[in-house]
């Protein structure tokens, strides 16, 4: 069990309580303490409350989001008060060096997508030396009447359902890049991974091997080629 210190890290909007940067409260076991003479916002506290017991506990599950997530925002959209939860070692009283950074992922902003399909073309070309989009691991669906363009591509889910769904263990995670790797010799083309994928990001090649983004070993060609940043690779929350 950790102790916690919840600090106001920054204020992006306006708080008329007011909360100020540096204000904090601590949690030790079941006890909340606010420094003498200070106050804490009721609404921020009620929104933080459910996560505090979870943050107190050690979690060993590899892809669980709780250890990675340390910032919460005041529920008033005009306030923008950002709270950071630091874990404190009760023996030393010092904050624990933070475990893992959130890994970057491919982020898709369909509203910015021009529908040009350059991402498909470059993906097929760097992987298979053909411009034929059938061999691309990213696909753009277009609705020309509505003007909608939607890229479908792997987002490197933490708890990847495709890996779990594969009956022959053909899928694995590259722990260096975080990409999902396909063992083309093992893949039997059963489409179970595609059905499990929450982003409809898996298609199949002509010989029925799953096509999943491999992040180009880090130098991601579709992201580089996208003219409007509809595709990005980073760890900030992007708009879907």
């Amino acid at each position, binding site marked *: 069990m950790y102790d916690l210190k919840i600090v106001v890290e920054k204020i992006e909007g306006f708080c008329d309580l007011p909360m100020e940067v540096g204000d904090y409260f601590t949690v030790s076991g079941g006890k909340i303490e606010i420094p003498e003479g200070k106050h804490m916002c009721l609404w921020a506290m009620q929104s933080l409350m459910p996560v505090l017991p979870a943050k107190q506990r050690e979690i060993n599950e590899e892809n669980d989001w709780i250890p990675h997530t340390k910032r919460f925002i005041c529920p008033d959209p005009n306030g923008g008060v950002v709270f950071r939860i630091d874990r404190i070692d009760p023996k030393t009283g010092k904050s624990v060096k933070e475990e893992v950074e959130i890994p970057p992922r491919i982020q898709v902003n369909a*509203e*910015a*997508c*021009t*529908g*040009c*399909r*350059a991402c498909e*073309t*470059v993906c097929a*070309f*760097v992987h298979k*030396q*053909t*411009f*034929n*989009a*059938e*061999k691309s691991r990213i696909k753009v*669906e*277009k609705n*020309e*009447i*509505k*003007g909608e*363009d939607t890229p479908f591509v792997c987002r490197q889910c933490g708890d990847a359902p495709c890996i779990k769904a594969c009956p022959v263990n053909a899928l694995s995670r590259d722990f260096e890049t975080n990409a999902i790797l396909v063992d083309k010799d093992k893949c039997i083309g059963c489409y179970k991974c595609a059905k499990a994928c929450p982003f409809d990001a898996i298609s199949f090649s002509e010989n029925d091997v799953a096509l999943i983004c491999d992040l180009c070993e880090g130098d991601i060609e579709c992201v580089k*080629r996208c*003219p*409007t940043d509809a595709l990005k690779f980073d760890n900030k929350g992007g708009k879907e």
Partner: protein
Amino acid sequence: MNYGYCNQALRINLSKNSIEKEALDPQFLKDYLGGRGLNVSRLYEEVPPEIDPLSEENKMFIGVGPLTGTLFPGAARVNFTAKSPQTNILGDSNTGGFLGSEIKFAGFDQIILEGKADQLSYIYIKDNQAEIRSAEHLSQLDTFETQRKLKEEIDDSRVQIAAIGPAAENGVKFSGIFCNMVRAAARTGMGLVLASKNIKAIVVRGTTDLGAKEPDKFKKMIDKMDKEIKNHSEYETRTRLGTTQLVSSLNELGCLATRHFQTGYFAEADQVSGEYLEENYKQKEKGCFACTIPCSRFFEIKEGKYKGLKSEGPEFEGLAGFSSRVGVTDIEDALHGVDLCNRYGLDVITTSECISFTMELYEKGILSSEEVDGLKPNFGNSEAVFELIEKIKNREGFGDVLADGVLTAAEKIGRDTKKLAMHVKGLEIFQADPRGIKGYGLGVAVATRGGDHLRSEPWFEFSEDAEAGKRRFGHPESAFRLEYKGKGRVVKFYEERCVLADCLEACKNTVVNMEIISFQEAAELLNALTEYDFTAEEIQKSAERIMNVERAYIVREGIRREDDSLPERFLKEPLPDECGESAGSVVELEPMLDEYYKARNWEVATGIPTEEKLRELGLEKIIVDLKERNII
């Protein structure tokens, strides 16, 4: 694997119901590069001058280029070529979007349509195969509905479709071919040629491989060009506004086609400009296949009488055509006008000319209200604009007078109205006033498909770089839009750049206006991409060869120097005082023509290519043909 070229054409004879594949000779590909070049070469050889463009003897050639379908930014284009029913000379129109690349992935560099189907049909092409299917259920459907239904019917969201609308089916001479809803190959009546063959649509799906001979080298060159494009001074404006930037910029120069070219200044331009469209209606940027300059836009009107009108586009020609040219000051009316043309399958330039011509005649009292079916077509009367579009589409009432284009309309009306018909060789001119951009004026006058700016786009005349003007074109004046000296050489140069763009099937934004690739770079690209060797000199010569084949083609159809002209207004009436720096200007066409023919080594008196020039370009067959016909 195909490298740049598929080395294969598809020949479909609709009368005989035969579908054949034809190997393309490597020398043919080298000499004519692709798209427009392949098409005009075949048109010259296969379509003799005696034939009626609407008869079974006419043929349609659909060509893509070596860069189409590759990563080259904006190499998304495709040319449709036939003898034009609108002008009776070279018919040729080009569009972007996604059809071109799909044809390439289906395994063809060119598709040739001959004869006439016995019922309304569509052609379905997939991966080296083709079939002719009935399209009777699509009869009279607009272009949007046709595309939507076909997609549904074939049940594949990735098929690409070229379709005609009711205007073509009803026999309107300036009807076009539409892809990706609004991408239009609408000039010179190519839609009507398809209709005359009983073809409602061409549907293409391609999943075959297309690669580069030296993939790493090709990719490196593309990456470098992408960078150049992103760093280009015009990049930001082009992605924000695309061609619609021209409404305000041409208006500032005093040469925006306004109220049928009675002036070059539209006082309400700010309300119909690309900037106004962006601020109030733009939803997002849109791009053609693999293009890094998303210069197209998707817009939506969210309230008012056009609530729910949404579409990609418009481009400058449609936006100005249905605002300044017809005097309409409400951008929503202009957007509605463009949308009607897109759905009915009409060319926006010709349609807006026919309507603004009617308006000028009406305001001058040459046409009475009774003659125009009781309408009161004053400039700015948007309801009259919409009525006339409907009538043209249906060829009913006065619409029937306009439906063959402005030249025929003027001939039918008589009363000395021909001099007010804004066309060259039967093709209506664009939304800029040549008096303020004289190089463009020359380009429009000599364009091989009739009055059209996209054959030359002599962008250099905006540069105001006197030193470059002297160095590149022999006259410092050539760098200034209101001067005429040196423009013959400027136009020749840019005509060949346009041929290059239309053969590689890349966008003129990059190849011509932004001058992203030189002939040298084009050669290097094709050498990395294809199995053939090209030099810069060969490519430049091919571009010149193609220009000469086109000229020989129209010369064979009877075109001479006197047809390389401009409407009288541009030669005699100076632009009015409100046109700023352009005020007082007319086009000094004759000296520019002299210089142009000399630069081309064509006969100055007649505009006929000399035997010497044709021989230099290896066009012996054309020499023989023109000699047999006593032309040279």
